[in-house]
């Protein structure tokens, strides 16, 4: 994850400082091809910043601007398709890029309460998973550097805990699913795996059971009533006198 907020604002925290350099170096410009149209943009821009610098208002494929939206690009003299996240990938001279507007897919619809945390669930909800040919294209496509193919293999073995662990940092950009020759929807299998783990494979907290019961039994009603009746001054006194763990 990272941001792209440079130059977006005339930040008020800027101050004149002595860095040993006399002047800020002049911004160098590079030419990139944005969805088919060449544009001159600063060389330190992210892909998202470059699209906006060219005058476009992004509507599809932008959100938190901290690294969740996929982009694809090619570089001069390089046959490969590269993948990245638009707000964390820097532009390069001659880069030809497309921001991914959406990833078409059919999410499995299910009732979590009726599932079991095992391979049968994967088979029933995402049978296409078992078409995996272990080519590793998904892993190569992942802009988060996750071992996507490995977690698909975990799913095929019904190892839900490992599926959860290996896909923990998935941001759901869907580039794996777009590149997969077997047409698997890896990132949706990952969400299913995480929900199965949280619902069925977690360790139970007895402390939490007790606390929920205490609230239900109205054990805090008295303390709440007392605190809520205090004036500002008395409340402030209580607050600053409280001990800290």
């Amino acid at each position: 994850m990272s941001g792209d907020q440079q130059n977006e604002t005339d930040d008020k925290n800027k101050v004149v400082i002595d860095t040993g350099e006399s002047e800020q170096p002049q911004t160098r410009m590079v030419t990139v091809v944005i969805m088919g149209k060449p544009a001159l943009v600063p060389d330190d821009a992210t892909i998202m910043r470059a699209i906006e610098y060219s005058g476009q208002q992004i509507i599809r494929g932008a959100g938190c601007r901290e690294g969740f939206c996929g982009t694809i690009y090619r570089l001069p003299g390089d046959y490969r398709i590269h993948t990245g996240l638009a707000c964390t990938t820097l532009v390069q001279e001659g880069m030809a890029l497309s921001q991914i507007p959406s990833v078409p897919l059919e999410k499995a619809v299910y009732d979590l309460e009726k599932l079991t945390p095992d391979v049968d669930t994967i088979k029933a909800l995402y049978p296409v998973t078992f078409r995996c040919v272990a080519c590793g294209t998904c892993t190569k496509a992942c802009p988060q550097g996750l071992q996507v193919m490995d977690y698909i293999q975990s799913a095929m073995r019904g190892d839900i805990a490992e599926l959860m662990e290996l896909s923990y940092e998935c941001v759901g950009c869907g580039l794996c699913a777009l590149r997969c020759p077997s047409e698997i929807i890896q990132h949706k299998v990952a969400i299913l795996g995480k929900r199965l783990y949280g619902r069925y494979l977690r360790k139970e907290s007895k402390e939490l059971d007790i606390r929920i019961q205490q609230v239900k039994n109205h054990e805090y009603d008295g303390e709440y009533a007392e605190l809520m009746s205090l004036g500002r001054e008395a409340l402030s006194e209580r607050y600053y006198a409280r001990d800290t763990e």
Partner: protein
Amino acid sequence: MYPDYLKDSLEKVDQTRSKRLELAKSDKPVYPPMNAEEREDVLSKFHPDSTSGARSHIRVGPNKGEQLTTEITDLLEAHSMVDPKRMDAGLANPDYETDMLIIGGGGAGCWAAITAIKNGIKPMIATKLRLGDANSMMSEGGMQAAVTPQDSPTRHYLDAIGGGHFDNKPELVRALTEDGPEVVRELENLGVMWDKMEDGSLQVLHGGGTSRKRMVSCRDYIGAIIMRTLMDEVENHPHEISVREFEPAIELLLDDKGQCAGAVLYNLDTEQFLVVRAKTTVITTGGFGRLHIRGFATTNHYGATGDGLVMAYRAGAYLKFMDSVQYHPTGAIYPEQIAGFLITEKIRGAGGQPVNKDGELFVFPREPRDVESAAIIRECSSERNMGVGTASGRSGVWLDSPLIDMINGEGYTRHQFPGMCRAFDNYGIDIVKQPMLIYPSLHYQNGGIEINERCETNIPGLFIAGEASGGVHGRNRLMGNSVLDYNVFGRRVGKQASEYAKSVKLGKLSLEHVTAYDGEMISQGIDSDLISPVILPSYTPEDVKLQQLARLGNIPARHSMLRSRIGCSCNKGKGDK
């Protein structure tokens, strides 16, 4: 990789680390926490809300005469996107009918829908971008909930109301803190994977202003984990919940009895204005960071432009605490590409310390956010001049993260902060071995549309939950209470609004309030060419924007966005501001 000019200061941080580690291992605070007078002093001199021009009087609407954050006053003293006269046909023949319209598809909105269907109501979610495109998705560090034996919901209450400077509405703080434990359980039943100890109890950490360790977490991806779970659950009910993406609401509708009766949606692709008739309307539009208040960089989502405030205000809803803004103490300032990026408060919860250019502590690391931010601004100000400068002209202080592994054991940082590590690894900085450079970043809308514990407003049929609401956090929210807020009040609003929808009888749809509001602006002599909600910020260079605005006659496409950040040149005749 840090550049050479920062090496001297980095060495000083290394030199003071062992001394500071000893302090951290003792049972005393590493630096004396401020008392009430010291807090007041640093806030009044250094918090951005206290700077000149930060607030201005609003001349129209329910809060008329009150001081609000200047950018909010500007946003509210602005014109509607639609001409009510041209909407008559739509009002007579709505494009959509629903029992419950939920405006905003973030955490609170998804909860509202999930809860409503359990009560037999079929809601519609209308959202600006994609479902889950929200600040909810971006939270990192944790959620407060009093789940340990040494803690209690009432202690959580005291921490939250003290952090908010005792301005919070008591009944809202009670709802927030009392529902916390149950929310933890409900989320794990939906499949959220909390960080747990060996025995199954929840792992808890401190946050700023907490007197007990109360922060439950999902490593540093709590937002992504919860939001994706809630979205997935919404998408598991395609026949009960209808989702309209890329269709933000831009005005509310009232009926001839003054009840809220739906909204006008704006299709971002086709630029149609569509009418939704709804028995009840829920605003869960989140906050306003993308308005870049006081020119600050922000940690917020692309769509966080305060739309709900605008719509509700024009319809007559009262705003609370819209004179205060939260700046997160620790936004990244180096490297330049990630300026503004949120460094989770959990870093300080796990033992990270803010230190100045000499590597010295200057503030208790876990003061409430406004106090911590003001102290960092003071350290960098000309009064102290102890900040570290970057070549891009920014100034900040170090956040010493290598302490975390030293306190908690090797490997802790990489396991607990995968998102933070990744963000800095991209630029050759290993936060396990080197500190981060930080400065406060625009983070949260403390106030909002006033609600009660049933999420009701002063307009019948209009309900609010999450960051768009006002009263829960007073004038300063503590870490982990916003994640709790959207979960607690998202659940509550779904229940309350769906119950309301069962009995209400709607009258004739109307946009007369929009016409009346415009009339009030004219009678006050307000001459603004701003149009709100602005929907999205525009980061188009100003010269390009001026070329786009040259078109005469009809209003250019996405006009509100073009106006959103052009600065003074689009706001003529402001009178006294």
